[in-house]
Every structure is written in C-alpha cells, then in structure tokens.
C-alpha cells in the first residue's frame, strides 16, 4: 500500500470512498500469527499457531474462553484482543446473571462489532488492530463468526486469519462442505491439518499449536498437548503420502506473494 494524504485520520475519507486507517488496521490482523476456526452442527473448534517472541519467552495466548459456550481466537495486536476478550466476558457474565441463561453468540458478536465501529468514527480513537474468530453455541446451533476491525462481522463454516492464513483457507475451502456433518474428532483433525498448512513445511508438533473445542455437551476447554500430539501422529507418521502435503508446500510458497497482492489499491480489504 502506498502512503497518501488521506490516511492520517480515521475520520478522513479518501476520494474513492475508503477509510485508510481502517484498512491499515486490517493489515495489522494479517501480521499476527494464524488463527483458525471451524464448526459442525454441534461443535466449534478454534486453533492457533504458538508464536513466541524469542526462544527464551513463552508464546502469546491467542485463544480465550469467554464463557462455557463461547470462545474467541484472535490475530493481530494481542493487547487489543485481550481487552476485547475482557469486554466479551463481561457482557456474557452480565447476561448470565440477569437471565440465568447463556448469551446468544449472535448478539455478543453484534455488540462487539458495534464497539469496533465506534472506533472508526471518532477522531480521538483508533480502530482495534485485531481480528476475532468468535465460536459459540446457542439455541439455534453452533456458530463461527469473524469480527473485523472495520466493525463488520461475518458468519462462517470455517475461516482462517493471520499470516499465511491463505494456505489454511485453501485447505478449508476444499473440505468445508462436509464440516456440518463432521464428528468432533474429524473436526479437530481438520483444524490441526489446517494449522499445518500455515507452517510452510515446518514439522508440526503439539508444542507449536493450541487447540480448543466447545460443543453441545462440552463446555469450552483447551486440548492438552498429549491429545493434540495423538492426532498429529495419526497423519504425520507417513510424511509425504498425501497429495495435500505436496500441494500445501507449493501453496504455502505462493501465499506470501498472495498476501502482498491482496494489499493492492484496487481491492478494499474491508469489502471481503
């Protein structure tokens, strides 16, 4: 993206009708490490890649429990993500307290989106630099939403955000039609496989990823390292047997170029 004279303020429109500050905020989401979400009729799985600042430090937490029936995975400015997670927890618990009933995910997501929109229309604020994958369960079934810094939100069967997420999205695009009927185990396996796509050939180890599940009779919780490793072992045993493995590497190489391409002046990311 080129610097230009309309991008200083979030309250300044460009002549082509764009808010550059908001688009730059969405760039920040692409810089964060990958986060993936997928859902079936009864379960939602959220997974993320563990990125650490250095070998000395621990990795950043990217998946948060909002309530027994809602979890969120973030990509981008994790500090903004932490603050928004706290807001979501607060909304959820206030609803539970007043109505003794879980907050419907769809309503939480709208409140979150409205909060993000406020920051795109105040001269003394900046947009949140974080994308949120909100997964949850309510009366109407399992849901996965993506909340954008722009204040938009979309519902997905499966989605990936963050760096090298295109590789994961391609994998998911091939398989998403079957997700609704997937078993819990298959869903988890697909999530881990999607994570593998974003690693660009690096060997997948359970220490590199965090996986969380929630479902109809299963409150939100993280899978422990052992369980993740077990799933990895079922497909990592035979290294290059799957066509997918070879394809994934080629795609992963193309991914960085694609990410740069998406930042073109012609396509406003807000509209995707």
């Amino acid at each position: 993206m080129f610097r230009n004279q309309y991008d200083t303020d979030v309250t300044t429109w460009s002549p082509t009708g764009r808010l550059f500050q908001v688009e730059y905020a969405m760039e920040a989401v692409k810089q964060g490490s990958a986060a993936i979400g997928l859902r079936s009729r009864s379960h939602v799985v959220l997974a993320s890649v563990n990125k650490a600042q250095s070998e000395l430090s621990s990795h950043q937490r990217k998946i948060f429990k909002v309530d027994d029936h809602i979890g969120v995975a973030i990509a981008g400015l994790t500090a903004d993500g932490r603050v928004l997670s706290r807001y979501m927890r607060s909304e959820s618990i206030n609803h539970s307290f007043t109505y003794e009933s879980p907050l419907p995910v769809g309503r939480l997501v709208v409140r979150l989106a409205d909060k993000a929109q406020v920051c795109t229309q105040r001269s003394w604020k900046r947009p949140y630099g974080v994308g949120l994958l909100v997964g949850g369960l309510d009366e109407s079934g399992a849901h996965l939403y993506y909340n954008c810094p722009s204040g938009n939100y979309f519902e997905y069967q499966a989605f990936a955000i963050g760096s090298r997420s295109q590789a994961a999205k391609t994998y998911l695009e091939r398989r998403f039609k079957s997700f609704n009927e997937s078993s819990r185990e298959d869903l988890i396996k697909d999530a881990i496989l999607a994570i593998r796509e974003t690693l660009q050939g690096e060997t997948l180890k359970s220490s590199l990823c965090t996986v969380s599940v929630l479902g109809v009779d299963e409150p939100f919780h993280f899978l422990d390292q052992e369980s993740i490793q077990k799933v990895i072992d079922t497909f990592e045993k035979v290294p290059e047997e799957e066509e997918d493995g070879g394809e994934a590497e080629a795609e992963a190489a193309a991914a960085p170029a694609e990410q740069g391409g998406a930042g073109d002046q012609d396509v406003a990311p807000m509209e995707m």
Partner: protein
Amino acid sequence: MLLILWGVLIQFTIPIDNGDALKNAEADSQRTLYPYVTGTSIVAIKYKDGVLMASDMGGSYGSTLRYKNIERVKAIGKHSLLGASGEISDFQEILRYLDELVLNDNMWDDGNSLGPKEVHNYLTRVMYNRRNKFNPLWNTLVLGGVKNGEIYLGMVSMIGVSFEDNHVATGFGNHLARPILRDEWRADLSFEDGVKLLEKCMRVLLYRDRSAINKLQIAKITEEGVTVSQPYSLKTFWEFQAFHNPTAGAQGSW
C-alpha cells in the same frame, strides 16, 4: 388490618436533623410505604401440557372491593404467563418493563427468544434491586411458561425471594391453597383435572378470603401459546345450617 400491619413494619423512623429540611426533603418521599389497590391470590400449577394459572378479577381499595374487572394474568412474549397479586399499579409498571424487554428481544430478529426462565430471573433481579433501595414493587409475581418442551413455573416476592416449583400460590393462597395442592397435585394432570384442582382452591379462597370475588379467569400456556379464559363464576353453597342463624351460638359461632 393486615395492610396496616405491613405499613407499620415498613415505616421505621430514620433520625433526620430537620434544620436541613430542604436537603432532606426528598429523603422520605421516594419510598413505597403501603399498597393502595391490591389484587388477592394467584394459584398456579404445572400440568401435562404446560401451566394453568387462576386468579380472580378483583381490585380492593383497602377493605372496599372497588374494581371488579382487573386482569391479573397476562401473556409475556411467546412463551410466558405472568400473574401478580399485590399493588395493581406496580403490576402495570412491571408489564411496561417487560414490554420493553420483549420488544428489544424481538428487534434482534435472530431466532433467539426469551423463555420463561429468562423472564423469571429478570424479574427477580428487578424485585431484589428495588427492595435494596427500600422502594419495592409491592407484588408477588407468578411466572409460568413452556419453551422447547420444558415446563417452567416460578414465583418472585416483593423482597426478591425467588424459586421454582410444581405448584405455587400467593397471598391467602399460601395458607389455603397450598395444603390442597400438596395433597392433590400430581405430575401429568390432564387439562380438565388441572382446572378442577384450581377451581377447588379458588372456591376455598372465595369462601374464606374477604378480598376475593366470584369472578375468575383461568389462563393456560402450552407449547402452542397462551389462552386466557373468559371470566366466569364458581357455584357456591350458602345454605349450611350454621349460616342461617350465625349468632345462635355466639361464643365462637364460626
């Protein structure tokens, strides 16, 4: 007499330095001290298909039976029924709160809807918060409903005491109807048996509660929705010998 007792209970004195009359003028004027127009008991039971709730249509002004056409049972949203005894104006205020709640719920237009459990808990919060401010809504509320096959029946009092049960009664019903319900309620009552049971309770209340009138409504809520019956009267019998000459054995003729 009971009304005055309540009034006395609530009206305890707070020492105020009257030199500050201007500043403290509001201190006492914003609290509910006693009710004015009141409804008497509500009796409600769970039955096979949902909940049955009975109430009479009277509004008493102290000891005068002033209003005889007050509906004390109302439908809330698609899934709930609310009955109230106590101050009628406070009941109307609560209906306004719930109207707003249901409206906002409908505006979401997202396939989620408020069930009886949610409404009951919301009311509990409202009643308890008002009680904490020493400005209660002077009602005992009965909340019944059916949602997704689950039958729900609960009660909230003016001080925020809240619970669920298979059968509930307010006011005089606590003393006169509950024993009958405890003996005769069973799970899976048919609609006809449920109505008979409620009428039995209401008849006792009619004979013994001086603020009851012989004009009652029975409301039913099932998965399909709410129906409130037309007002009707119960048959009563006054030809007992003892009633013919009530002062005959003056020492305790009742």
